[in-house]
């Protein structure tokens, strides 16, 4: 018993000692399960910096944690619309590209460039300021939205690839019996309907609100869900659902780990990415509360290196931002390691950069408009 107490005492002393090591600290605010610990360990060894990661589960929390200044974070990884908001409220520092030498040897993927352009455009419309968001942010991961479909339904796949959004929204014309599911986030529903009408999903107006309402009513959704959507298509309880590409990959990897082959899974349920679709990007920014500016730049520079970005992507399942990192993942197509090979195949199908698409990141609407969309969607649901 005494020995145990002694051991416990020693352990706790060790813990305390290691916690107050004299290494400089880098405080990162990140999403949960959104970084490969291996990358962090390698970085710590190489630069002698102690990385402390805090986790938040919404962009709004990121915002309030920086705004309240209780902890001085050196690096934060919020999404597109939140970065727009933070820049507008002067909460971010400009990046010092002289400290990011790896930047010159990478090329952002086409989708990423489109997202940056779109962010500049929406901010210009809303505030008359022309902002180059690259001066504030280096992309971390990005991802598209798509339609998960039930491939057990004959002809559904073909119809989607010929008619795109129409199949999902025009319940009268295509597959009237198909069970359709929509994310119960009002702005997602609004944006999807806008893209179906070939409009910019960020173009909010009362006239568009009315149009969207009638589109959503025609679609006659069987379900308004969240994580339930992907599971229901997988279990043959839903036929079409608009979700994150990552949602599909999540289920795909789980099925693959249960000894199914990629072809078998795709015969049951697959993902279709429309030619015009929503995207999101999470990017590394330095808030003006940062104290370890050098460390933050070193970390960003470290993750710009394609090998590190690819390693980080192994556990996350979203798309890497640079072509060089993507090429590394593609090199696993011939890999002996089945897990790595499947991962590469999935990336080559669902994050294929050869296909030209129009990508729209969602902007943050003002509270009144968000509310009007929310009420409209509730009115559609209640009929």
């Amino acid at each position, binding site marked *: 018993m005494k020995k145990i107490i002694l051991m416990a005492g020693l352990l706790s002393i060790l813990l305390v000692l290691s916690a107050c090591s004299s290494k400089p600290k880098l405080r990162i605010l990140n999403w949960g399960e959104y970084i490969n610990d291996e990358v962090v360990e390698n970085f710590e060894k190489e630069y002698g910096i102690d990385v402390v990661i805090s986790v938040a589960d919404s962009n709004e929390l990121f915002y309030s944690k920086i705004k309240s200044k209780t902890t001085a974070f050196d690096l934060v990884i919020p999404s597109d619309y939140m970065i727009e908001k933070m820049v507008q409220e002067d909460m971010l520092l400009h990046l010092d590209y002289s400290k990011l030498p790896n930047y010159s040897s990478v090329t952002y993927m086409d989708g990423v460039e489109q997202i940056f352009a779109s962010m500049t455009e929406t901010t210009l419309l809303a505030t008359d300021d022309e902002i180059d968001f690259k001066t504030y942010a280096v992309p971390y991961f990005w991802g598209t939205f798509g339609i998960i479909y039930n491939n057990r339904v004959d002809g559904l796949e073909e119809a989607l690839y010929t008619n795109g959004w129409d199949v999902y929204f025009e319940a009268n014309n295509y597959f009237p019996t198909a069970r359709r599911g929509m994310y119960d986030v*009002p702005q997602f529903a609004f944006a999807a309907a806008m893209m179906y009408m070939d409009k910019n999903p960020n173009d909010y107006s009362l006239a568009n609100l009315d149009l969207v309402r009638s589109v959503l009513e025609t679609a006659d959704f*069987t379900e*308004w*869900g969240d994580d*339930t959507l992907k599971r229901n298509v997988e279990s043959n*309880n839903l036929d079409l659902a608009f979700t994150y590409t990552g949602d599909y990959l999540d289920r795909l990897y789980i099925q693959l780990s249960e000894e199914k082959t990629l072809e078998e899974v795709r015969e049951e349920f697959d993902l279709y990415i429309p030619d015009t679709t929503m995207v999101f990007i999470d990017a590394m920014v330095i808030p003006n509360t940062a104290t370890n500016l050098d460390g933050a730049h070193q970390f960003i520079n470290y993750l710009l290196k394609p090998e590190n970005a690819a390693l980080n992507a192994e556990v996350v399942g979203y798309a890497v931002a640079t072509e060089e990192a993507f090429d590394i993942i593609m090199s696993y197509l011939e890999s002996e390691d089945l897990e790595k090979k499947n991962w590469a195949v999935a990336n080559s199908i669902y994050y294929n950069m050869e296909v030209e698409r129009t990508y729209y990141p969602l902007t943050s609407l003002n509270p009144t408009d968000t*509310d009007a969309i929310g009420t409209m969607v*509730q009115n559609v*649901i209640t009929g």
Partner: protein
Amino acid sequence: MNKEFKVLARPYMVWLSVLVFVPILAMILISISNLNSSVSVGELMISFSHFKLLLESSTLIAFRNSLVFATLTTLLSFVLGYFIAYEIKLSKFKNKFILLTIVILPMWSNLILRTESLANIMSENNILKSILGFNLFGNISGTGVAVLFGLVFTYMPFMILSVYTALEKIDFALEEAALDLGLSPIKKFWKVVFPLSLKGVVTGSIMVFLPTLAGFAIPKILSRGRIVFIGTIIENKFVYTNYNHGALLAVVILFFILGSILLLTKFDKEGETLL
């Protein structure tokens, strides 16, 4: 009251005022003003502009859904639960505690987990179907029936326990006397036992009615997001940080709850059946 007890009661009184009364006052203030994260206290103004939300068709339908489902759930729980409670009371089984434990057994697992599983076996293709070969529930997932089933399944134990407590308190001598004076067992039940157990029924009804009225998780999961309760709208308003609207609807719900409590005190002055 004894002085020592007064001191001991103080921590909870502080708790109650800080975490219940102050928030309620804040909620009322937020519901009738323009206060939000971008308006500072200095610019605070009384404003009734959010009240037009109450006339929105989705709000009205959500209120109707909440009231209808809460009432139906209470009625069904009463009809089905009363007789279970009565059976337990009549049972010759020595250890009634075990019977009551069985009644609350479902509560040992997490509410959300239970509801998700229920939603799963109510859907068209599920694990039970692949084992049994047929669909136990039919394909009721997403319908009102599914929601009602889930609500009754979740809240009926509260009714059973309250009614059982009331039934146990009835002096057996009264029942003997009724039989002695020539009442048939059925008449004895209606003339003696049932009226004496009414307090338990009222308490049970309140304990079923209130959580059903304000709840949102069960209807959301079992209706697959298609049947909107007022709780669903309140949740949405707070998630999308429209605190004024959320607070307004919460205050309206508060009035329903206060009404129910008044009803309770009318029937049950000593509060003795309240668990």
